């Protein structure tokens, strides 16, 4: 009667938005002791945090909420005074998990980008359900996470219900 998908709101995550060119990126890499993903749609996934590449000078550091303050300050201080931006955007976005055999059947109602091109572990940003979303592929075909601007969270929650075939 409807699609086989579980949708839930993500909780306890923190997002730190990084903007900066090569010199400051090196500082961040040193601070976190990790090589940043440099190619489009790529991400580096660690136990403590992930780094998502969103553009050539744009990353997200995704971590647990409890690490938010500490990571923000370390990243911020490592580029103090430079041409860079370190911003906590945790509350600017709301994350959703879309899991199940029909995950793509639900997501393709909102995304017009080619979902075939994204493998597990990749990420991108694109138009979604007229509000846009950042997409992280956990397990291609089966398990996805999307982040939408938080002011759209109630709308997207409802949108996802309808897209699954439920009545709201």
């Amino acid at each position, binding site marked *: 009667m409807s699609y086989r998908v579980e949708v839930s709101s993500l909780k306890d995550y923190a997002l730190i938005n990084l903007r900066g060119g090569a010199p400051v990126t090196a500082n961040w890499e040193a601070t976190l002791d990790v090589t940043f993903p440099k190619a*489009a*749609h790529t991400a580096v996934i660690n136990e403590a945090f992930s780094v998502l590449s*969103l*553009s*050539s000078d*744009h990353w997200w550091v995704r971590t647990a909420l409890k690490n938010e303050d500490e990571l923000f300050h370390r990243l911020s201080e490592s580029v103090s005074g430079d041409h860079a931006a370190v911003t906590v955007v945790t509350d600017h976005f709301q994350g959703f998990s879309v899991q199940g055999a029909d995950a793509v059947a639900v997501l393709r109602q909102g995304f*017009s*980008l*080619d979902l075939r*091109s994204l493998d597990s572990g990749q990420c*991108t*940003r*694109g*138009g*979604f359900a007229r509000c*846009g979303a950042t997409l992280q592929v956990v397990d291609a075909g089966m398990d996805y996470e999307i982040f939408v601007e938080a002011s759209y969270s109630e709308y997207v929650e409802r949108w996802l219900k309808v897209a699954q075939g439920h009545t709201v």
Partner: protein
Amino acid sequence: MLEIPCPWCGLRNESEFVCAGEADRKRPPDPEAETDEAWADYLFNSTNPKGVVREWWWHVAGCTRWFQIDRDTVTHEIAPVKERSK
């Protein structure tokens, strides 16, 4: 629905972008040195050719980059423009 080649994200639907007009229109470095006519021309006029036009596009729903493409206004054939180094 055009398909626009974003230099970072790849091919995406036109609906993810904003077309920001002709790329040759550049803000004069010293606006006060411009005559009223030249200033008005910068503000309001486009060449609007039938054929290839170089345009700014903004991938607002994606990587938020501004980039240029050459678009044929007749056939909608699109050719990417090599990015200037910033």
